Every structure is written in structure tokens, then in C-alpha cells.
């Protein structure tokens, strides 16, 4: 199958700062591709290049065979975008915002109304279509933006941190819509996030840090990189239990903080065996599966939590001030 997005050796420099550093990847049609990394890793810069808003310092980017620089008009027709910051007109109603969009994208006159209503129904905002957007909650605005982005039936949909600043309920709600999109609307999704757990719905993930892609693969493949599952076991006699596990199950076991720590490839299948073998000696058992955060931790040596990304924030801030200078100069 031919890839719908192709990126080769893409580099973008802002002055002396390299925001994106020679990245390459491909996205297959009809899949969800996740771009993961801390703030300031270069995710938004990459999206802006793919959306024809920025031109790269070097390298190539193409969508559906059209070069993002040379054929920007063709690319723009085929993409939909939900930006990190809200881009709705808050004074207009939900319906008017979508109508504006359908004119901008030259949606045929006789289809405008139907497509807008379908999109509003899809995100569950049809009943509120005549209300000004300023009365909408953060989650509703995001859903409306998703609805707007599919009206012109794009081939690729870019979602830049779509759940940023939303409460957990709106986030879950929004992910339901997003995961249905590829099948229902025949669209490929390119999304960025720095919430590791959100990336689980992706078919393929690229992890980016300091402008470079440090790992690519399906969530399962990436998790395998940090090894398999870990079983934590509490028993009446840990020393005796470890001995049994090692001899009769042939597994590696160690004691840590009063718990037995066993590293296995398939934890769920291993637990029944352990319990059968150790029988009454087991007090409690828990299974820990690797998360994408563990992957990130292993690859970069830092967790993807706010306190660990301050370096990224600094980079973002310096890019921002550079952009400001550039815009004025």
C-alpha cells in the first residue's frame, strides 16, 4: 500500500535553534498515526510544515503525492486540521462557523447543508447549532472543530494536541469520536499528543524528542522494547516462594521491598501457573504492563511529565520569541 504522508529528512531551523532535525516517516492510508513527545519536541512545527503554513529548512514532505511546498493548494484541499489553539469565530453560531468553512473549501452548494448537519450530528452538537460558539464549553468547541475539519471530506486529518486543556470526561468523549473517524469518514489521522495513554488508539507511533524521532512502531512493538510484563507477588514466605518459582517454573524472580518481582513476556497467562504452583502461599498478586511512558522513559531517560519537560518548554519559549522577532523584522 502506498503511504499517504511521506516525510524525508525534514529539518526546520528557527535561527540557531533546530526545532525539527532530519526526521523521516511514512503514514499509511486509513490509519491513525501518533506523534508523541514532550512540549517543544517539534510536533507542532512538523504539523505546520505538513499543513503548508511553514516551509522547511531542508528535506521533503508530501501528502497524497503532492509536495507540501510546491503544490500547497492541492495539499490544502486534501487536509483538515484541528489546531492546538481554538480557531473558531466565537461570535458566530456553530452552524455559521461550519458554513464559512464549506464556502472556503468550495463544497458544492447543494451538499453544504447536508454535510454540515451530518457533521454536527456526528459530534452531537446538532441541537445547539444556532447558538453562538462563545457559549460552548471547551469540550464542545473541540468537537465542533473536529466536525468542521471533516466537512470538506479531507483525506488526511491533523489533530494537534486535540485534548489539551480538556477535563477527563470531555477527553474520553472526544477520543470516541476520533477513533471512529477513519472508518466512518474514510480519513487518515495524524495526531500529536503528550498524553501517553491517549496514544494507545494509534496504529503506529513515532516518538519525537528534541526534534529527532527516537523510535517508531505500533504501540505493542514499542512496549516490547522495554521488555515484557512485570508480576508483583506477595507470599507468606518470599524466600521459599522464589526458590519454587526458579526451580519448577524456570522463571527469574527477585525480592524487592517485600514483594517478589518477576519479569515475563505474557503476564496474564503466567499468573494462573504461579498461583497453581504456589497455591496457598500467595497473599496478593498484581500485574504491571509496560506503558508508552515507560518506553519514553527508557529511550530518553526522563519521564514525560510536566516537571521533566521544562527543557522543552524553554525551547518552545525561545522559538516563540524568535518567531515574534522574525515577524516584526
Amino acid at each position, binding site marked *: 500500500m502506498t503511504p499517504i504522508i511521506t516525510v524525508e529528512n525534514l529539518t526546520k531551523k528557527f535561527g540557531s535553534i533546530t526545532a525539527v532535525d532530519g526526521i523521516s516517516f511514512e503514514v499509511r492510508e486509513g490509519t491513525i498515526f501518533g506523534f508523541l513527545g514532550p512540549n517543544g519536541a517539534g510536533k507542532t512545527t512538523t504539523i505546520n510544515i505538513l499543513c503548508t503554513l511553514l516551509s522547511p529548512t531542508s528535506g521533503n514532505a508530501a501528502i497524497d503525492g503532492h509536495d507540501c511546498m510546491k503544490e500547497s493548494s492541492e495539499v490544502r484541499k486534501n487536509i483538515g486540521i484541528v489546531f492546538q489553539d481554538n480557531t473558531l469565530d466565537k461570535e458566530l453560531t456553530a452552524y455559521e462557523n461550519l458554513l*464559512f468553512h464549506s464556502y472556503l473549501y468550495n463544497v458544492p452548494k447543494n451538499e453544504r447543508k447536508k454535510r454540515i448537519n451530518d457533521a454536527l450530528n456526528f459530534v452531537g452538537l446538532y441541537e445547539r447549532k444556532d447558538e453562538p460558539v462563545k457559549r460552548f464549553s471547551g469540550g464542545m468547541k473541540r468537537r465542533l472543530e473536529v466536525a468542521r475539519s471533516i466537512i470538506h471530506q479531507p483525506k488526511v486529518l491533523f489533530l494537534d494536541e486535540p485534548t489539551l486543556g480538556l477535563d477527563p470526561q470531555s477527553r474520553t468523549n472526544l477520543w470516541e469520536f476520533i477513533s471512529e473517524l477513519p472508518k466512518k469518514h474514510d480519513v487518515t489521522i495524524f495526531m500529536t499528543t503528550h498524553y501517553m495513554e491517549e496514544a494507545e488508539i494509534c496504529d503506529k507511533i513515532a516518538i519525537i524528542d528534541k526534534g529527532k524521532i527516537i523510535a517508531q512502531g505500533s504501540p505493542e512493538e514499542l512496549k516490547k522494547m522495554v521488555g515484557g510484563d512485570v508480576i508483583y507477588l506477595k507470599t507468606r514466605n518470599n524466600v521459599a516462594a522464589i526458590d519454587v518459582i526458579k526451580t519448577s517454573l524456570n522463571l527469574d524472580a527477585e525480592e524487592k521491598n517485600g514483594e517478589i518481582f518477576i519479569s515475563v513476556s505474557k503476564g496474564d497467562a503466567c499468573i494462573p501457573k504461579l498461583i497453581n504452583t504456589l497455591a496457598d502461599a500467595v497473599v496478593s498478586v498484581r500485574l504491571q504492563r509496560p506503558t508508552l511512558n515507560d518506553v519514553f522513559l527508557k529511550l530518553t531517560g526522563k519521564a514525560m511529565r510536566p516537571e521533566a519537560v521544562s527543557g522543552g518548554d524553554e525551547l518552545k519559549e525561545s522559538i516563540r520569541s524568535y518567531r515574534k522577532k522574525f515577524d516584526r523584522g
Partner: protein
Amino acid sequence: MKSDMNAIYVIVAREFIKFVRERGRLISTLARPLLWLFLVGGGMSKMVSPDMGMPYMQFIFPGIIGMTILFSSIFSSISIIWDKEFGFMKEMLVAPVSRFSIVIGKALSGTMVSTFQALIIVLLFPVIGLRLGIDQIILILCISAMLSFCLASLGILIAVFYENLESFSVIMNFIIMPMFFLSGAMYPVKLLPHVLGFLTKINPLTYGIDALKYMIFPEKKLLTHDFPLSLDVAAIVISSIVFVIIAAMVFERKK
């Protein structure tokens, strides 16, 4: 081509809807010319000698129409900075429409709003003792529309260089106010010293107000219009084209 027409149409339609919904904006932008006409114009009429051929309040009437257009057009274009700051500009920039149509759409939005406000001021003519025929009013509106388009394009050109509204007072004090005073609105251009005289000649508003004087005081009197009408119209048209082209080019430039 059709998609560009659609884009222009919908950008103007958006502005129209917002203009109709925010009536407060209309009142606040009309307050400024009314204050100048009646408080400055009224006060000065008592001071300026009447041998200039007409009361001062009537003399500044074309200038006040020009002022209405200047403020309203430039403020309307400045909305581009709002759009940038609140993200809506991105929605337009990633759409498959040319930068030209965005600039033209925005300029026509400004033209619509300003011409309507100019009409309201023009209709005050009986209050200050002027007589205007319906044909004169139509010609005044034509000139107003052309001048509005020109100044709205200038406003867009200014707005594309700014990312946020922090610099708004700079635009106000160093562009809008000098343009108004150096336009022949308050006193005839001929009276200005040489250097300032040059500045008035590169100010498109000068030509707009000169053309308005031509329409409002058709019988040539002292202190009215300074240039031939054809020069006025040519200056407005050419500067409009230049502003639109440069604004679209700056817009197109990718970072």
C-alpha cells in the same frame, strides 16, 4: 476562480453578520466624527474668519467624512490582528484559497462597513446648512467606497506586520492621527510648509478628501479642492492596487 469568489463572498458575509450583531461598534465609531464635526467644527466656526467663503463647519465636512472612513476602514482591517491572535486567521490560511482573495475579501469587508458609516455622516448635511442633491450624494458614496477600499487595504498591509494588539497605540499615534491631520481635512493643504506639504501629497486620504470636496462644493471656491478630480481618482486607485499586492505578497511569504 469560483473558489476564490466563494472565499471573498464568505469573508464579507462574516463581517456583515458581525457588524449587524454588534450595534455598539457602529455607535462608538460614529461618536468620533460627530464630536469633531460639532465640537471642534462648531467651536472653530466662531474663531475662523468668515471671509473664506463658507462657515468652518461646512469646510471640514468632507474632512469629517474622510475621518469616518479612515478610522472605520483601518479599524476594520485591524480585525486581522484579532483573527491572528484568536486563531481564526489560521482557519483561513490553511484553506485552499489564494492570499489575494483573503486580502480582497477583508478589504471589501472594510469598504462595506466604512461606506455605510460615511453615508450616515453624509446625511447630516442639512444640519450644518449644506445643500446636496441626490446625484451629489451618489457620487459622494462612490468616492467614499473607493477611499474605503484603499484605506482598508492599507490597514491590512499594516496588520499583516503585527502579531498582537500591543502595538495598537503605535499604529494609532504614528499612522492614523498624522494621516488625518496631513490630509487637508482640517485646513487646506496649500497652507502647509514645504516638508509637510510633501507628506500630504503621499497620503492617499488627501486625494480622497479632495475628491469629496469636489463633490460637496462643486462651484470652485477659495480653499476647496487642490487637485484635478482625475488625479484624485487615479491616486486612490493606484495606491489601492499597490497596497493589495504588497499585502498579499507579505501574507504569502512563509516562514
